[in-house]
Structure formats: C-alpha cells, structure tokens
C-alpha cells in the first residue's frame, strides 16, 4: 500500500513552494514596494485647514471699522437624511423649495456619504431659528464661518472688500489658497492681505472609509495652530471720515485729509460712496454688479484714481520752485494788465490788477504772474536750453509727489500726468517749443493730471515747510503696533524752508482776504488755495487745498468737487468744515452754512439743487446716465485727448477765481 511513499516528498514540495510563493509576494509588497504605505496614508489622512479669524480694522482712535461676523454654512450628508418636511425646512432657511430640492439632488449625486454645502452663509438669526428645529432633520448640520461686518457704513474705498479666491489666484498662490478661501480684493483688505488673513492652521485627522472623522493623527504631533490675522489700526478718523462722506453726499469728488507731521491720512472720501456692508456675503454678487453699472462709478477710488488738472492750486508750487531755482524773489513783481499776452493770444486774468508780488499773486490768484514766472523758469533759465530748463522744472515738480505714485497702501493707485520734455518734442519738434507753447502748465492746466491724494500730500509738504511723510492709511499693525519703516522717513520737497513764508503768507491771505474768505474759521488760521479746474467736458471742477493751523499744522486737506464750478463756492467751505471738525470736533459756524453743503446735490446734469431727496436723485441718475460716460475724470487727462488738441488749448483762456 505504501508503494507511492516517495510521493510524500512531492506533496511536501508543493506545499512548501506554494507557501514560499506567498512569502515572496509578501516580501515584495511589504518590503520592496513602499508605495503601499502612502496609499494607506492617503486613505485615512485628511489635512483639515483651521481658519484663523481675519484681522479686525480700527480707526486711529480705536473705533472698530471692520469686524468679523459669524455666519453658518448649512451642510448635508445625504446618506443620513431621513424623509423630512421640505416645506418647513425651506421656510426656516428662507429658500425656494424647488431650488432646494434641486440642490439636494445634485449633492446626492455628488456623494452620499460626504458632507456637502447646501446653503451658504446663513445669518445668525436664520441659524437661531433653524437650530431649534435642526433635530428634526437628521443629516443636516451647520458649519461656522465668518464674514466681514462694518459697524458704520463708512470708508468703503479704504477698507475694500474680500471675496472667494478665483482659480487663477489659487494656482498662482502655490498652495496658499484653496477653493472657497477668502482673499482681500480691494482696499486695505488687499494691500495687507498677508497680515490680515493670519496663518492657517493644519489639523491632520484620520477618517474612515465613509470619510467620518476618527480623531487626530499621531496625537496631533504634526498639527499647527491657526494664527489669527493681525489687527490694523488705520490712520482714519472715523468721525471725520463720516463727516466728510456726509458733506460729499450727492456730489462727485474726493476729500483727502492728511496729518502733516506723520503722513497719516485722516479722511479719504470718494464720492459717491457705498455702504461696505453691501459687498459682504451672499448679497455681494448682485450688489457688486449694481455698483459696477452705476454711471456715477461708485467703485472708482477717486482720491487715487481720478486725475484732474490742478488749476490754480498749482500756483504755490510754482512760487516755491521759482524761488528755489533762484529765479524769482518774493518781492519781484510781474505785470498783469488783465492777462498774459502771447502774440495774438491772451491768458486772461480775471482781475485786472496792478503788478503783483508773490504774496499778492497767491492771494489774488494772478494768472499773468505765473505765466511770467514760468517764462522766467523755462525760457530764461541761465545756462539752460528750454529742454534742460523744462526738465529741471519738471524734476522739481516731481519732488512734490506729482506725476509719480506716492505708493499709498492701497492697490491701483495712479500716478497722474506730468509730461516730460520728450512729450513736447514729439508734438512740436525738438527745440521748437518754449514756455509760451506750453503756457497752460504755468497755471496748472493743460497736460497735467494730479490726484486728490497727491494734492493733499503737496499741502502736507508745504505745511511741514519742506518735507512730507509718505501718505498712508495704516498707522500700526498688530498688537505690537508696528509701523512700516518707509512711513517714518521724511521725503524732501527739494525746497529750502526759508522760501516758504511768502507762499504760506499768500495762502493765509487767500482765506483772510483773497478768493476763499468764505472758508474762514474764527481762531483757526487756515492757509489754502482755491482752484477751478477746467473741464473740457462740462462744468469746471471746484478745488480747494489747504492746511491749518498756519503754525504747527494739524491737518492738510485737498477737496475736489466735480462739475461744481468755482473752488470757493463748494470745495473751500467743505475743506473749512472738515478742518474745524477735526481740530475743534464741532462746528461753530451757523447751521445754515453746514446745511447748504449737506443738502446740495451737485451730481452731473443737476442744476444746483439743495434737495437731498434720495428718490429724486435716483431719477436724475437714470435721466443723465447716458451722458455720464463722457464725464469720467480720467478721460479728461488722458494723453490722447490732450495730444489731439494742444494748439487749440493754448488759445483757450483760463479762468480763475
């Protein structure tokens, strides 16, 4: 019977070789091939992002401007949903039933076990109402998120807004942002994005096959905590800002107020403005489109994007440069005689006054004086050709921060317009032009574009008698109150301080006895200059710039009111009210003085109209909307529009007041 005994060995060999095959395979997948560990980790490990609260934003006196408001995202896990009262649920979360059902179906198709977003950003009230009933709806839960909230609806242009990052940014950020993250899109939110957003934490958790959380990985050894965003203390004075916005309501234009001793921007008004709360959360998309389509362009940040010919407010700058160049002395008089004649053309001066000295020229805003002064600097600059002299003059102007970006801490700042000699060479041919060819520049007209911010900054520089700090909106960052070093650096205007007194005296007289007596404030000596910027497309822009008090100035200000006419009529009193509000914290002038400004509606197409009726305003907007395209301030100074008619412009007479 045991004749096949030796077959025992073959059978044992089969057993052993088969098991050896298993061992060999195990050796391969467990020891040689190390991909499997990664696969296993990918299965269970989830990196969860822990969102830090975004930094809050204060004004200079610690008034909260931007805070975080909790909202609630409604999530659902389709698998756990039991049949429920859809009508009641939709009523609770305030959505239409068919939309909700459709959304739920989509989510179901996406994943039955993963939690998906059903309705985002439920308000706290909606959530409170829902919470009481949530137990009736298994499978639904809410996730906390935060939105920005603005306790008072001011300074929208400064603060900016945030929104979900787009795909392009996600790609560019190389992992800094993920789908659904918020990012600052404009304003401080954007320029300080990195500091405001804080540092996201990473929590590594393990999940089971149904993606349910199963606790932290390796006792959280690799987790990082979220670091809250830095708080920002802005330089704005909320009260002043609010007041400025009130003064500018129903008007188009800007107010920029700077503290000369620091460069801190106290008020930054762009009119028309909008309530920053409109660009938050679920309503943002619709409101954004509305604002974008508004013919008055409320999203346009006028203080840094609108460029106007400065007009007469350019005169003090000319006076300072002329002195510094050693070509004009304060006592020197230039004839007026109602204007400055170039051949058959006349740059008209409204006041046919006696020859003026420097102080008087500023006080009375004499056009002829500055034409002569300009001729002196350009044509008669000793040892210089016109090109060289122009370049020297232009460099001196640039030192005032004109024609260059001031690098304010806001995105999208424009640098304005200050042509180089090459620009004129191109038009007239090299050596074929001189001061008389570009005489408009002497009185701040022609190919000049200056932003309200630049203007206010010039005033700060004059107020400081020769230097300015870079204007900025954030004065301190984080709880350590850090300040960016570049904001602590003095920038010279390139003018010796000894040349300032006649100019400043002249500017003081503008208020005391010159063009802007209406802006006078008892006991606060203001130095300023009105301007009436020519607007080829319509009514002139009303401009005022100034600072106060004369000694030890606290505030430098520039006010632009588009299409409002004379500088003295609107811009000067607005500046005056702002100055008093800031320095005294109250207005001592009669209520009527204030009300006249507050109630005025100077929107394009309006006749002066004291009505503050909002409905009326809306009607007017609609009526005039087609015209407004033409009236964008940027267009006025676009080089193209200027180059088309340089000769024509020279013929124009310049009005001033």
């Amino acid at each position, binding site marked *: 019977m045991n004749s*096949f005994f030796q077959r025992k060995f073959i059978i044992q060999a089969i057993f052993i070789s088969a098991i050896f095959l298993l061992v060999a395979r*195990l050796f391969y997948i467990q020891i040689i091939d190390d991909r499997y560990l990664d696969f296993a980790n990918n299965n269970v490990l989830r990196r969860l992002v822990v969102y830090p609260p975004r930094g809050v934003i204060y004004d200079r006196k610690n008034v909260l401007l931007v805070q975080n408001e909790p909202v609630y995202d409604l999530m659902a896990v389709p698998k756990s949903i039991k049949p429920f009262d859809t009508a009641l649920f939709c009523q609770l979360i305030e959505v239409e039933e068919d939309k909700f059902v459709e959304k739920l179906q989509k989510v179901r198709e996406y994943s039955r076990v993963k939690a998906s977003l059903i309705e985002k950003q439920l308000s706290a009230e909606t959530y409170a109402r829902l919470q009481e009933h949530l137990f009736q709806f298994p499978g639904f839960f809410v996730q906390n998120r935060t939105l920005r909230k603005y306790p008072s609806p001011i300074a929208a242009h400064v603060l900016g807004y945030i929104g979900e990052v787009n795909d392009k940014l996600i790609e560019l950020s190389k992992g800094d942002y993920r789908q659904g993250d918020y990012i600052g899109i404009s304003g401080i939110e954007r320029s300080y994005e990195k500091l405001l957003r804080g540092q996201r934490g990473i929590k590594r958790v393990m999940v089971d096959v149904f993606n349910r959380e199963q606790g932290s990985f390796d006792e959280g050894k690799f987790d990082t905590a979220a670091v809250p965003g830095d708080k920002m203390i802005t330089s704005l004075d909320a009260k002043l800002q609010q007041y400025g916005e009130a003064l500018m309501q129903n008007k188009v234009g800007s107010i920029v107020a700077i503290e000369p001793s620091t460069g801190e921007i106290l008020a930054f008004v762009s009119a028309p403005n909008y309530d920053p709360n409109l660009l938050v959360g679920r309503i943002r998309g619709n409101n954004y489109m509305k604002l974008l389509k508004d013919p008055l362009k409320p999203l346009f940040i006028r203080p840094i994007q609108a460029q106007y010919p400065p007009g007469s407010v350019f005169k003090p700058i000319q006076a300072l440069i002329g002195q510094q160049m050693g070509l004009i002395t304060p006592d020197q008089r230039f004839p007026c005689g109602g204007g400055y004649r170039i051949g058959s053309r006349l740059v008209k001066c409204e006041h046919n006054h006696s020859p003026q000295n420097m102080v008087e020229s500023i006080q009375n805003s004499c056009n002829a004086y500055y034409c002569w002064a300009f001729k002196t600097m350009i044509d008669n600059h000793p040892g210089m050709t016109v090109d060289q002299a122009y370049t020297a003059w232009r460099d001196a102007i640039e030192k005032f921060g004109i024609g260059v970006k001031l690098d304010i801490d806001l995105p999208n700042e424009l640098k304005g317009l200050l042509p180089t000699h090459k620009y004129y060479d191109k038009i007239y041919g090299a050596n074929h032009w001189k001061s008389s060819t570009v005489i408009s520049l002497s009185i701040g007209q022609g190919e000049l574009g200056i932003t309200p911010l630049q203007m206010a900054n010039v005033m700060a520089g004059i107020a400081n008698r020769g230097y300015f700090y870079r204007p900025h909106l954030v004065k301190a960052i984080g709880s350590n109150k850090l300040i960016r070093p570049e904001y602590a650096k003095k920038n010279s205007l390139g003018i010796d301080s000894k040349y300032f007194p006649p100019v400043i005296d002249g500017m003081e007289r503008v208020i005391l006895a010159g063009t802007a007596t209406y802006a006078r404030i008892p006991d606060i000596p203001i130095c300023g200059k009105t301007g009436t910027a020519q607007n080829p497309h319509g009514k002139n822009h009303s401009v005022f710039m100034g600072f106060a008090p004369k000694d030890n100035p606290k505030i430098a200000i520039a006010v632009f009111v588009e299409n409002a006419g004379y500088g003295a009529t609107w811009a000067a009193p607005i500046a005056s009210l702002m100055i008093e509000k800031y320095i005294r914290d109250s207005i001592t002038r009669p209520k009527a003085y204030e009300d006249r400004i507050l109630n005025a509606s100077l929107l394009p197409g309006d006749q002066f109209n004291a009505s503050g009726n909002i409905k009326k305003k809306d009607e007017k907007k609609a009526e005039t909307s087609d015209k407004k395209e033409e009236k964008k301030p940027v267009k006025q100074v676009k080089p193209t529009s200027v180059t088309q008619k340089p000769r024509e412009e020279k013929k124009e007479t310049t009005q001033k007041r």
Partner: protein
Amino acid sequence: MNQSQQTSPFYNVDWMTIIIYFCLVLIGWANIYAAVYDADHSSIFDMSRNYGKQLLWISSSVLMIIIILLIDSKFFNFSAYVFYGITIILLVAVLFVGKLVGGNRAWFEIGAFRLQPAEFAKVATCLTLARYMGSTNLKLADLGDQLKCFTLIFAPVALILLQPDAGSAMVFMSFFIVLYREGLPPFYLVFGLVSVILFVLSLLIPQSYIIIGLILLTGFLLWRDRRVRRHYFLIIGSAILSIALVTGVNYAFNNILKPHQRDRIDLLLGKKVDPKGVGYNVNQSKIAIGSGQFLGKGYLKGTQTKYDFVPEQSTDFIFCTIGEEWGFVGSVLVLGLYTFLLMRIVVIAERQRSTFSRIYGYGVATIIFFHVFINVGMTIGIMPVIGIPLPFISYGGSSLWSFTILLFILIKLDTNRNGIIR
C-alpha cells in the same frame, strides 16, 4: 490498548499539532478583535461583536474537541458514509430552505446563527474518500476506480456549484493531491497545472499564437520520441486536448463564468484596473498588507482595517489585519505556523498503519493547504477573489467548527496510529 486510553481523552494525542491549532485560533481571535475594534465596544468579551462571538465559537470548539477525543476511533470510519449522506441531504436542502446571502444560497439560518453545510461537506467527503479508498483495494491507475473516486468528490461539488459557491467547490480539487498520493497517475496533476497555465495564457495572448506554439511543441516532441511509438498516442492526444482547452477557454470565460468572476480574473491578470470599482477589495487589501512593511503598524493601529477600508475584514480578509498590524514578520510567522502544521500532518498521515487514517490525514492537509494558499493569495493579489476562509483564523462558527472537527478527527485517529481501522 491499555488502560489509560480509557481514562484520559488526551492519551497519545499529538500535542504539537494541538499547540499549533491553539496558536492559530488565538491569533485569529486577537486579529478579529483588531479588525472589528471600536472604542465603544472595547471589551474582547462583548458578545454583540464578532470577537465576542468568536470566543463562543472557540469555547464550543474546545467542547467539540473533547467529544471527538472521547469517541472511539472506529466511529469515524464506521459512520463516514452516514456523514456523507447527511451532508449531501443538507446540501440539497440548503438550495431550498437556505438563506440568500449575497446571491448565494449557502447558509442555514438558525436563530441568530448561520450554518454553512459546504464547510462540513469537506469533512464528510474527506472521511468518505478515506473510507472508500481504504476499504477496497483500489487501483487508482485504472480509469474505473478513478471514476468511482471522482464521483464521490464531484457529488458535493455539483451541489455546491448550484448554490452557487465556486470558492468552496474549488477546495474539493485538493482531493486530487490525496488521490495522487494514493497512486493516481501524475498526469492529472500535470493536466490540471497545464490547464491553468493554458487558461491564463489564452486570456493574455491571442489564441492563434498559443495554438501555433502548441503545434510546434507537438512536432518537437514527436520528433524527439520518434523511436518510441507508444508515446505518439499520448503526445497527439495531449495536443488535441490542449488545443480544445485553449479554444474552449474563451467560450467558457465568456459564457460560463459570471461577470463578477470574469472581473476578478481580469483584475488578477492585470487586464482590468479599477481600484474604485470591482478592484476595490483587492486593492485595499493589498494596501493594508503592503503598508504593514517589515514590522507592521502595531496591534490595533492598522488604519486600513480599523477604519473599514478593507471589507470582510474579520472573515475572508482577516489576513489583511495580520499583514498590516504585524507586518512581514507577523505574516511570515503565521504562514510558518501553517507550513509547520502541514508538514506535521503529513508526518502524522505517513505514520498511520491504517490506510483510512493516512488518506484522511492527507485530505486534512490538502484542504487546509488549499484554503491557506487561495485565501492569502487572494489578499495579496496573486489569486482571484474567492470567498473562502483562512483556517482557524477567520471569524465564523461554521468555518472554525468544521476545521476543528477536520483536524481533531485526525488527532483522534492518530492516537490509535498503530491500529488498523478498516
């Protein structure tokens, strides 16, 4: 026999086999605990969980061991046909009153417990085959005697295929190794092996290439053995059979196999990659075992098993838990225990004076071997997914009971190794 046999059921038992048995059972219990572990039910004695129930199966197995050891050796020989008859009846009955689980009608449901008659059919068939072959002077070289044995094997196979449970049915092929030991011509094993190779080849490369190859091989063999005339018949016969097999494979593959079986084979051969769909189980199982690396992740620290990425983790895929938590070292240790057990059983079988006991012993070894090879092979992706348990380790009453009975009948027979049971 002497007196002490009557007094102690453990007289003359092979302690080494018993120790290995208990090692495997305890390893199984510990790993079932790890596989189904969750913090809410952390007591290993929790009867609502698989590990708690497994303890019940283990205790009842111990009881069964004692009963088996108390029964007279002759009983198993004597009642082999009766067992066989009962299991055949049960296999028929289960087709009608069985509980439908996952498309198979393979289980009786009695209260909270389930019983799988196919598991016990293995034991009964093993006993019957031993009894039949041991009692008559079979000549397995003869076709007639071969057919008689085949009939005994294929009767339960046919019934199990009706359930249908191809996995369990396949295990019965292990008896061919037993028959081989008893004199079945090696042709059958070679034929089986060649069939598998041809099957795999014909799924992987175009049929015509294989047929050309086979013809060339036939030509070569005929030329080599041109002087041995009697080989002509054999060579040509094999060639025709092989070609028939190759041409039949596609038909069989597409018409006889079920879609899920086709998928499993395609996956194994790498013709189909679908880690999220039909390949999910095997893929996750490989990830579990592969990620264990050399020393494993540690007891209860296997993420694949703990977080349910591996399906059927306490039953058919229990080896994943071992591979993941105990690594290569643990896996090899377990396979080493099985190898040792198999070798020991072969030794036990060969030391029997009785043919019945020897044949039965080989039956036990080959059944265990098939289960281990197919089950572990499946978890590491070298065998198609066939739902059969890992002996002594997988969770399940039917499985543990039937393997316990299978093994301990042999141990009981072995206590009487010098006797002749006819």
